């Protein structure tokens, strides 16, 4: 439904000194604040060990350097509205960016001076000589004070200059930066993939420095690759080369189904083959991602489809984990009577499913009639109660209290035992259950139940008036979500071999929520992508990700991301068309109103009515 781009009239660029000074100063001060915060959060120091390009750029410096660029770009961004004339971008925008960067840099200079002269280490733990040294590039106080305004100005100019680049240049610059950063960040995975089973050491030797980070020739190559891909992208936009994604989007009916089938089979085959080529660490990473995909798919049904904000989702994960542990481990609490057998994982799984259904009903029933926000807090309360009960001495004889349950065996398939020491096998197990979860989500979304969930999400009281028993239908969402989470718990128990109440803190619920929201509520592909990006790169609540150095900061980033997504992009990274509309309701209503005017003018009932593009 995208209308053809309206061409806005362009006014000549404004003079360089024709600035909105207040705005520039505000952005500059904000930048200074952010830079000082990042420094005092110790990001530069603790990320300094991770090299991006050896020996020029470490992730520590990068954590400071990207901010002036973005801020320099933002300060002269304008929201483009159709039909309004705008000034062309020019020297004014570049200067504004530079000034913002300059003010930000001065903030860091001030910090350098302050650290040099005062000791505030008491409350601020990172007020350290190490930070000072890093901010001075090891060259003494004078250098430190002068370099930051200069650097800031330069980076701000670059940010502002992005406005005057042509769209083509911008695309290519974006791809170059993306490729260099991407190849650097995915270092572990790439090396693992190319050298573990495949004989491509020469490639990784070319790209990477021996102690980590891109080598200089590698960085240049990466930049060239990125530039090439960016140029292809530009060509694709101009229609010179084919655009597979666009073509796919235009497919309809059976052709689309066929394309989908091909994509699904390809993904399936890739999922089956990839782990064989990878080593331990990467497979471990994939298994963690898989566990969170499973959890997030379950929460997606509850939050994304039915619109119920369940903050105690970890409770079902815990029930799955504990039930499996207790039923399979010889080392469970000693209060259990003999008739509770020590069984096989699959037998335990049946009990786990039943227990998850019961827990879902038990937690769901009291909360299901509550207002949405009360429901959120009460489910959170239930999540805590369940953890506290597992932790308590009262049930300690059954659950092991703080000592948890240990010695949980793996999944014995007869020919092989899947256990934590073999992450590849665990990954396959997780993948199978993820496939089940994807199938369940997909089938249910298109069924009577899925439609009822969506209706409830849209308008609960109307859904009720249209004959939907909202209580039962919402409980159903709760139960389906609970069962999927309990699968994850069961695999988790077999994977780690011992479980403790600390594995099931509320934090887990929140992280899963962030994954679902960042990926896009109500969107299966989005949720998988969200889990892969967040859990894979930054890491889960306890699990390290690719950027292990980030572990101190990942929760900070999750929090910021959650706010950012809600403010700027509530539909998530991979938007579901429906949700997008719901969340930008106002805009859509305006559009619809405009169209209805067109409609009213036309002969009533003519099928060419509302959406006919002019």
């Amino acid at each position, binding site marked *: 439904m995208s209308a053809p781009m309206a061409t806005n009239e362009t006014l000549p660029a404004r003079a360089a000194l024709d600035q909105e000074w207040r705005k520039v100063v505000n952005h500059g001060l904000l930048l200074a604040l952010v830079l000082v915060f990042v420094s005092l959060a110790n990001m530069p120091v603790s990320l300094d060990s991770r090299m991006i390009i050896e020996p020029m750029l470490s992730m520590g410096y990068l954590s400071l350097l990207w901010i002036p660029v973005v801020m320099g770009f933002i300060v002269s961004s304008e929201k483009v509205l159709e039909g309004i004339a705008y000034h062309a971008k020019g020297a004014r925008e570049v200067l504004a960016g530079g000034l913002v960067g300059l003010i930000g840099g001065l903030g860091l200079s001030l910090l350098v001076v302050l650290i040099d002269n005062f000791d505030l280490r008491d409350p601020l733990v990172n007020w350290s000589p190490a930070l000072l040294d890093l901010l001075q590039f090891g060259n003494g106080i004078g250098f430190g004070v002068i370099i930051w305004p200069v650097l800031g100005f330069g980076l701000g100019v670059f940010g502002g200059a992005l406005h005057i680049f042509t769209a083509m240049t911008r695309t290519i610059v974006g791809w170059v930066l993306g490729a260099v950063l991407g190849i650097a960040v995915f270092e572990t995975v790439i090396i693992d993939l190319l050298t573990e089973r495949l004989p491509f050491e020469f490639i990784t030797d070319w790209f990477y420095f021996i102690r980590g980070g891109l080598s200089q020739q590698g960085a240049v190559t990466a930049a060239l690759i990125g530039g090439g891909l960016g140029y292809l992208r530009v060509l694709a936009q101009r229609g010179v080369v084919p655009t597979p994604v666009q073509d796919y989007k235009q497919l309809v009916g059976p052709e689309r189904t066929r394309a989908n089938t091909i994509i699904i089979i390809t993904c399936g085959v890739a999922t089956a083959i990839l782990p064989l080529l990878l080593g331990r660490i990467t497979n471990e990473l994939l298994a963690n991602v898989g566990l969170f995909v499973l959890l997030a798919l379950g929460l997606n049904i509850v939050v994304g489809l039915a619109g119920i*904000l369940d903050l105690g989702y970890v409770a079902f994960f815990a029930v799955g984990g504990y039930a499996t542990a207790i039923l399979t481990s010889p080392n469970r609490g000693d209060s259990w009577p003999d008739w509770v057998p020590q069984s096989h994982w699959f037998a335990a799984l049946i009990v786990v499913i039943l227990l998850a259904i019961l827990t879902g009903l038990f937690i769901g029933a009291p909360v299901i009639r509550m207002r949405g926000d009360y429901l*959120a807090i*009460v489910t959170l309360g239930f999540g805590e*109660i369940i953890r506290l009960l597992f932790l308590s*001495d009262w049930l300690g004889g059954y659950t092991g209290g703080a000592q948890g349950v240990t010695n949980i065996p793996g999944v014995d398939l007869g020919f092989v035992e899947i256990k934590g020491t073999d992450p590849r096998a665990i990954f396959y197990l997780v993948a199978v259950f993820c496939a089940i979860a994807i199938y369940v989500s997909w089938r249910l979304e298109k069924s009577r139940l899925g439609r009822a969930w969506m209706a409830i999400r849209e308008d609960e009281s109307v859904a009720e008036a249209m004959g939907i028993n909202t209580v039962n239908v919402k409980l159903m969402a709760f139960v389906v979500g609970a069962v999927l989470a309990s699968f994850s718990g069961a695999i988790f128990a077999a994977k780690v071999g011992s479980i403790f109440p600390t594995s099931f803190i509320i934090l887990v619920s929140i992280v899963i929520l962030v994954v679902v929201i960042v990926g896009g509520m109500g969107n299966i592909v989005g949720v998988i992508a969200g889990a892969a990006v967040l859990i894979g790169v930054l890491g889960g609540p306890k699990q390290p990700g690719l950027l292990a150095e980030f572990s*101190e900061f990942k*929760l900070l980033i999750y929090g910021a991301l959650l*706010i950012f997504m*809600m403010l700027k992009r509530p539909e998530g990274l991979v938007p579901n068309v429906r949700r997008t509309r719901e969340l930008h309701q106002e805009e859509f209503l305006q559009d619809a109103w405009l169209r209805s005017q067109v409609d009213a003018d036309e002969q009533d009932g003519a099928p060419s009515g509302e959406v006919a593009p002019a």
Partner: protein
Amino acid sequence: MTAAVRSKAAPRTGVDWFLTFMRVGLSFFFISGVIMFVLQQIDPQNPIAQVFNPDATGLTADQFEGLIISGLSQGAMYGLIALGYSMVYGVLGFINFAHGEVFMVGAMTGMITSNKLEEAGLWEDAFFVSLVFIILVAIVCSTATAVIMERVAYRPLRGSPRLIPLITSIGVSFLIQNISIVLLGPGAKAYPSLPDWLSQKRTVLFLEVEGTKLMVILVAAISMAGLWYLVERTKTGRAMRAVAEDKEIASLMGIDVNRTIVTTFAVGGAMAGVAGILWGILFRSVIHTTGFLPGIKAFSAAVVGGIGNLGGAMAGGLTLGSAESLAPLMVLEPWGINGVSQLRDAVAFLVLIFVLLVRPTGLFGERLSAEDRA
């Protein structure tokens, strides 16, 4: 078929039956726990009291007094935090999940300032002046946090679907906690020790009370009185009540809605700041997660007292504080549950669930605008 008149209150579906069962079951659990406790107090060898817990010892009068006092002092603190939840819910109709973090910011600034004061030797010498000073600093910081939060995260979301600001506030809460970790470090930090004359027990009326707890209750009472004056007797308070009733009409009456909402956040933040200092005085230790549980409990207190109802928030706080302090020993112990002190937090959540099941509008009735009641 005859047209029998049914009432909505009568259970019909399975869920209704289950809820009735839960209501009755929980009531029975609470009441019989208390009865067993009372019987045991009368006669430790009472056979009824020993059904579930043969070796219960009961409580001495001193222990009981101590529990009540610490329950009330914590409850007063919860009440102060609850005011912020209640006011924001009354005005904007959403739960500001991050309000607990505003409280934590108050406790943290109090910790930093009081330690600096101690280094300077002022803490011991001029305790009251120092106390007033750290309370003021905490109020300023907490208020600033609350106001910035409103401006940056919540104002752009006004009018969006209900759950969106709630999810955002979860993000804000998470962010502030982690800012505290990266700036101040992840460990627990201690307040300087209080002067001896303050922590001594002293007799008030017929009760033996620790000076600190007495002071906590006093400070809370003073703050509450100030708030009451502000809301009921000043123009600002009238504007706040008008905005809570109906934003649109309030703005037509010439009230600056944005400013009033900011004021609401600021006042809630100030109360949370005071509560933060009280926390520091009571527990003398603060960590980045300090805001989380007290925050949730304070929200529970607001619900228990009836959300939007300021007197109710304070009363709810006192109720919840006492319940949390007494219920483990008075209700759980007689049932033969061991290690009851570990279950304090669970009790607080149980009280919330129980109140929402039995009387969802809270003990003292909620005060919300018509649109938020839906």
